[in-house]
């Protein structure tokens, strides 16, 4: 259980660092110090300087905002769309459920990140397009999860009682069915944060995500690739940040699953 708490600490510390961190660092993420470019970690620049002489720590803290923003935006939009479509399809059944099921099969036939790469390649690289691409592939897992849960919940006695009392379908869905699926959604959403953060970093690393000079952990890693020989700190620190945050969300997700879904133990 201690290891799960470590996950929560990592996530909270990263959030706090993203909010207040940039204000605490004496350098801006875009401030240049060309004569000192590629300098390693030192007392004045704790994590060193990048290829343009920008402070790596300042960029890392600003980049945390991008990662967390993408994670939150992708997960909240995916949850909203997925829960709505999944619950309506599961509750209504019939042709609607069939049609949604087929659409989900086709989207799931793509390896997740490939469709995101394809969408961003066609729409052009930008933060908005990354979010759009990741939501396009992200909602499916929530819809599938919720649909499965709704199929079970709609047959329970209290839902049948509500139906017998003449409650309209939308009310039964919103008040009785969807709330029963939320614990599973919360667990999935926490793990989804890790997935979205890693996907954004992958796309930015491939040059398809956030564009320079906006600092993002993925673009920082991409830039560091050209300086593996002379400035390995440009690769090590952004990667560590991604790995720690992803680990944090995975641990929190595992912990929530243990708490909210006793059958999973």
């Amino acid at each position: 259980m201690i290891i799960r708490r470590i996950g929560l600490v990592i996530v909270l510390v990263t959030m706090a660092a993203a909010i207040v961190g940039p204000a605490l660092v004496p350098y801006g993420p875009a401030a240049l110090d060309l004569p000192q470019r590629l300098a390693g970690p030192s007392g004045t620049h704790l994590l060193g300087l990048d290829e343009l002489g920008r402070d790596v720590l300042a960029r890392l803290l600003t980049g945390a905002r991008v990662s967390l923003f993408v994670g939150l935006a992708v997960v909240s939009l995916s949850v909203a769309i997925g829960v709505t479509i999944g619950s309506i399809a599961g509750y209504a059944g019939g042709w609607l459920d069939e049609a949604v099921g087929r659409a989900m099969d086709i989207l799931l036939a793509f390896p997740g990140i490939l469709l995101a790469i394809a969408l961003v390649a066609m729409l052009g690289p930008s933060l908005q397009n990354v979010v759009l691409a990741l939501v396009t592939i992200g909602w499916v897992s929530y819809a599938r999860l919720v649909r499965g849960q709704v199929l079970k919940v709609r047959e329970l006695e209290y839902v049948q009682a509500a139906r017998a009392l003449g409650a309209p379908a939308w009310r039964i869905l919103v008040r009785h069915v969807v709330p029963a699926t939320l614990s599973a959604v919360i667990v999935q959403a926490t793990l989804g944060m890790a997935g979205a953060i890693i996907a954004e970093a992958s796309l930015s690393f491939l040059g398809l995500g956030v564009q320079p000079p906006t600092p993002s952990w993925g673009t920082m890693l991409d830039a560091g690739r050209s300086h593996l020989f002379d400035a390995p700190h440009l690769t090590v620190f952004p990667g560590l940040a991604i790995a720690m945050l992803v680990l944090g969300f995975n641990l929190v997700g595992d912990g929530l699953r243990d708490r909210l879904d006793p059958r999973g133990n």
Partner: protein
Amino acid sequence: MLAYVVRRCLLTVPVLVGVATLVFLLIHLVPGDPAEAMLGESAAPTDLAALRTRLGLDQPLAVQYKRFATGLLHGQMGTSFRYNTPVTSEILSRLGRTTELALTAMAVAILIALPLGVLGAVYRGRAPDQIAMLVSLAGVAMPNFWLGPVLAIVFAIQLAWLPVSGTGTWQHLVLPSVTLGAALAAVTARMTRTTVSDELRELYVLAARARGLSRLRTVVRHALRNSLIPIVTILGLQLGTVLTGTIVTETIFAWPGVGRLLIQAISFRDYPLVQGCILFIAVTYVAMNLVVDVLYAWLDPRIRYR
């Protein structure tokens, strides 16, 4: 079994049609004019018109789709804008390298995962288990686009044991395959630990030990062997991760495979090639899932009757 295979193949057909349609529609997502996006804003109107005709963009959507579908049925995916060669031949010329990398990565994953998972199961709850699971957790959390450069810094730059990039010798394959196989190894090790430790609680294991079989022999010959079906399944399910992982890994190590071709095609706005690579990877993924399902049904007959 044959009925199951036929049914499963038939179910794949609508998925393949859907995937192909989605990939076809992708090029129409390009904001504005795809021909202008490829040639640039300063292109001459005659060049733009010629490219539109060549790509069929001046035709109605239904006509374009028919041409696209007919081409696909004949194994044609258009002509690469950059190389001026058929997209199919560009992909096929790089397929061997991607297959080589993916298979080696899977072998690396198995070689790491099985001992790590068995160690965790045998010493469950004790120090070796905790170390093994910490290693596998790190493998899950470390993105391959970080692990690759870090391995390159340590083994290629600091120690100078292995080449940073390129192809040709087995040494060139080590860093890319470990980078690609690490995440798969982590997931498989966790699965191995769970299934082997479940098997170790079975009575036949106790009986084998009571008959005087050594601990190692009991674990390897009996418990691990009976755990193989779920392990094979998880390996099969992870094939998609390996396939998409090649895109990043090939880019890091300048490995001349289909994944790198896709990223290069994107940066050159070679849309026919982008479309072709994406369709190829997606269809391979669907086909691999089909093979895994059929293999699983063959290994476990209960699947066929569900």
